[in-house]
């Protein structure tokens, strides 16, 4: 079994980063595992409320249709049914689901934002669009009754492919956008790019589709909504990645409820990968209906519903060009992308193919000028939004497929062409708006080449050839912008929300600690890593620290977890709160020891008078804060509970090199990943075990995109062809190898932990590495993802 893990410090790493301070940097087993391993986790569908009822949504079977009429009488009379609602029952005061990011087009006009009704109003626009909700005593009764609703549809022509949707005369998804264009947006200096191309010694051009994916967290979306007559309040349990944002959007923009009267709890959540960031129609309808029905309403998606109603990912059609001089120096890049939005704008849909895509097109390289034009297009498909990586995998695919193809075309070694263009001075201002604070791209490339044993590749290829097999090697040197985001920068780019994070550290009288974080853990292990961070600073055991997340009733505020932001932004907010605790603790300790505050230092869990062994332990300070008998009450409040909000000053820039080696059977086209190596720079690492796990998971999704996964809508009927696990090829254990992972460290320069984030790297880097390896093995310029056996076999045949 391959299990190679290499951790080395980069030569550019600051010396301080190399030292693990107590629990920070330790490979600690996870606190949360005890409950998950014994069935004691509590996911939304496990929540049982007294007197709860059950909801079933009737969904559109058509991709596009006008609703002539809906008859609900028989359903309403069915056994156990409490209520049936359609779009006509939703009050006019209820708004549509909002989009959180305003993109202004190149023409200066705002993006088109057609209303996204919570139950279809007059028309359905994709298969799975919710049309009615049935609420009944049991789930079976709700489902049975939903079958008795008669909807008279007038089918309309549908369009599911962005290329079809942009054609003249294509069916319009929305009347407000007769040409299906949501916006046309551009970034970069087009004139300078065109001029550079005209002088180029070599131009590499690629046209490809970044295949549409379905996130498929194994826990389906679910909610349980209830109304409390006693104080006019609502409680919503929901499988969600950012409960405060869910509440804000639902109350302020859709239902018009007072924000403080709604508590949103996202308990244990079974994976998200982006798909549970968003405010969806289903939970919004259930909250609204819970008051009308006067009973808690529970809804859990069946997997078939997840396929048609979760927000999907990717779905770009791109033409990309790279201009090089005769020595392989990059002169310019020109990219034109059409991106599907689906039928409605999901919560962050608009910023994915723009702000999180075009800005990453410099990659790790000094390309001086870049221009990217993005056309966002409505189609009769489920909404498209962030899926692990969100824009950055698409950008990396553009850059790294271009670079690999250029190297092949110009007969320059893959690593050499990259090295000739690497950024080596920091901070570095890219031509696409970002300023990289730090990195060491050579270190990751060198590390990956060593770990992947690139030197031995020629011999392995020869051995494969003896067995009649093809072998190829593919590189992907990616960069991502994480730690979203400086609120003012995001705001200037169209964000309608802040992107800070909140943390509260509550020290109890006995010295035990509860941490409340606005980040949300749905697999990332925050209950452990965040406790490690606090334990390291306070000098107490992680068993004495509990981390609470996912509850607007207990946590001050939060922007949630996505974009690999939790440790960089959420972790920093907690550190800031801990700093306040320590500062106050020093004052209390100084009082107890009858010295000046400035003479007290905090180290190893003790407040010590500098230069002496006189000290007060942390727990004694905590007790004093709550039993303030001997206490400077004239100068200091009792208690030891501090909150901090942290707004980052820049994005973080994790980067690395992934190397994939494939072996292909030319007789069948079957492609096997012979080895996959990832060497990443995530800055300082809190828990290497968890970081490796995040990399492994991301790689699986990236390799899944390259080899297996593809969401297919029928171009004629608009039906979802890949609507079940029988049809959508998710990676299983035997589809993947064990991975070789390593890290290099250049600590982030602008957060106190020096961390960058690691959650998405695998999904960002892997697709290009795999496809570059396949193209290398079979000697073709390009191949469409996913590289199924059929596609590979055909490509080999076409070449021969």
């Amino acid at each position, binding site marked *: *079994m391959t*299990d190679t893990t290499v951790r080395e410090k980069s030569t550019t790493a600051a010396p301080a980063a190399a030292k693990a301070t107590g629990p920070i940097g330790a490979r600690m*087993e*996870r606190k*949360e*595992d*005890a*409950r*998950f*391993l*014994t*069935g*004691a*986790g*509590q*996911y939304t*569908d*496990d929540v*049982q409320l007294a007197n709860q009822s059950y909801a079933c949504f009737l969904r559109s079977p058509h991709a596009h249709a006008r609703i002539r009429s809906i008859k609900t009488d028989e359903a309403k009379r069915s056994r156990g049914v409490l209520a049936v609602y359609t779009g006509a029952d939703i009050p006019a005061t209820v708004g549509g689901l909002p989009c959180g990011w305003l993109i202004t087009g190149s023409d200066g006009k705002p993006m088109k934002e057609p209303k996204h009704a919570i139950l279809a109003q007059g028309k359905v626009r994709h298969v799975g669009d919710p049309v009615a909700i049935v609420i009944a005593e049991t789930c079976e009764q709700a489902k049975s009754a939903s079958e008795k609703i008669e909807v008279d549809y007038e089918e309309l022509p549908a369009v599911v492919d962005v290329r079809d949707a942009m054609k003249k005369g294509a069916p319009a998804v929305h009347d407000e956008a007769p040409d299906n264009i949501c916006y046309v947006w551009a970034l970069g200096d087009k004139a300078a790019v065109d001029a550079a191309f005209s002088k180029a010694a070599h131009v590499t051009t690629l046209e490809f589709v970044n295949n549409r994916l379905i996130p*498929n*967290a*194994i*826990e*389906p979306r679910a909610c349980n909504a209830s109304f409390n007559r006693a104080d006019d309040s609502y409680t919503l349990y929901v499988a969600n990645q950012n409960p405060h944002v869910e509440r804000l959007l639902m109350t302020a923009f859709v239902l018009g409820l007072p924000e403080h009267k709604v508590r949103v709890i996202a308990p*244990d*959540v*079974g*994976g998200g*990968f982006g798909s549970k960031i968003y405010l969806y129609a289903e939970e919004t309808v259930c909250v609204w209906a819970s008051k009308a029905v006067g009973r808690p309403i529970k809804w*859990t998606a*069946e*997997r*078939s519903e997840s396929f048609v109603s979760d927000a999907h990912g990717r779905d770009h059609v791109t033409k990309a060009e790279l201009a090089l001089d005769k020595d392989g120096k990059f002169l310019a890049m020109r990219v034109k992308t059409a991106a599907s939005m689906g039928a409605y704008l999901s919560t962050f849909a608009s910023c994915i193919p723009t702000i999180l895509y075009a800005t990453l097109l410099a990659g790790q390289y000094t390309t001086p000028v870049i221009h990217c034009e993005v056309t966002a297009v409505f189609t009769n498909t489920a909404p498209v939004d962030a899926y692990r990586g969100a824009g950055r995998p698409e950008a990396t695919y553009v850059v790294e497929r271009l670079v690999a193809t250029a190297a092949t075309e110009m007969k320059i070694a893959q690593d050499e062409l990259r090295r000739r263009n690497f950024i080596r001075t920091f901070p570095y201002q890219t031509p696409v708006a970002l300023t990289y604070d730090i990195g060491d791209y050579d270190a990751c490339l060198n590390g990956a080449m060593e770990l992947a044993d690139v030197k031995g590749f020629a011999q392995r290829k020869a051995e494969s050839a003896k067995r009649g097999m093809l072998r190829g090697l593919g590189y992907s040197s990616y960069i991502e912008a994480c730690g979203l985001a400086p609120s003012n920068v995001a705001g200037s780019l169209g964000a309608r929300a802040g992107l800070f994070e909140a943390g509260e550290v509550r020290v109890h009288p006995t010295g035990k600690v509860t941490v409340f974080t606005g980040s949300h853990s*749905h*697999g*990332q*292990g925050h209950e452990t890593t965040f406790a490690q961070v606090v334990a390291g600073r306070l000098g107490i055991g992680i068993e004495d620290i509990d981390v609470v997340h996912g509850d607007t009733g207990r946590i001050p505020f939060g922007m949630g977890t996505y974009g690999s932001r939790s440790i960089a932004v959420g972790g920093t907010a907690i550190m800031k709160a801990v700093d306040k605790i320590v500062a106050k603790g020093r004052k209390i300790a100084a009082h107890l020891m009858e010295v000046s505050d400035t003479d007290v230092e905090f180290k190893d869990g003790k407040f010590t008078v500098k230069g002496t062994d006189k000290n007060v332990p942390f727990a004694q300070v905590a007790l004093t804060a709550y039993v303030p008998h001997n206490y400077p009450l004239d100068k200091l409040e009792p208690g030891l509970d501090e909150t901090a909000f942290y707004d980052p000053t820049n994005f973080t820039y994790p980067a690395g090199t992934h190397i994939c080696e494939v072996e292909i059977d030319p007789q069948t086209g079957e492609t096997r990943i012979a080895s996959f190596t990832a060497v990443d720079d995530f800055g300082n690492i809190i828990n290497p*075990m*968890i970081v*490796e*796990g995040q990399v*492994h*998971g*991301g*790689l*699986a*999704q990236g390799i899944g995109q390259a080899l297996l996964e593809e969401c297919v809508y029928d171009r004629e009927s608009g039906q979802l062809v890949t609507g*079940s*696990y*029988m049809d959508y090829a*998710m*990676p*299983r*254990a*035997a589809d*993947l190898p*064990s*991975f070789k992972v390593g890290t290099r460290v250049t600590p982030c320069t602008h957060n106190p932990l020096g961390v960058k984030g690691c959650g998405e790297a*695998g999904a960002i880097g892997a697709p290009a590495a795999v496809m570059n390896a396949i193209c290398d093995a079979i000697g073709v310029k390009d191949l469409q993802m996913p590289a199924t056996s059929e596609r590979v076999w055909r490509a080999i045949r076409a070449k021969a």
Partner: protein
Amino acid sequence: MKISVSLTVNGKPVSAEVESRMLLVEFLRDNLHLTGTHVGCDTAQCGACTILVNDKAVKSCNMLAVQAQGARVTTIEGLASNGSLHPMQEAFRKHHGLQCGFCTPGMVLNAVSLAAQTKSPTEAQIRDALDGNFCRCTGYHNIVKAVREGLAQMA
């Protein structure tokens, strides 16, 4: 139509009158409140609902409650004994074989059932044996390590 069913769940006898169409997973989750057994799909593909029926791994969404008449059922809640984790649970924790935890109960129980076939499988055998269980978080790397160690510890 209601039918009576009697079985043993996690060592305790259970009798109930259930709808003939009730799935075993629904019986475990809704009637017995054993919510550690999860439902991740509707086509018997994901394996999150895997339990042990007479020591064999079974997808409990693919079996009616009444079919469990007389059976000995073990769910994830019944795997640890006397307050200590089963070796397979320990191995998953040690090797970080779980992230969100949703597929974990099914994954662990499927792995436990493997012991009847082999205690020292190859990596390829482990991967093949996990074919019926999806994990979207871990990329299976650490699950494979955990299963190998768990089986060795069970030997």
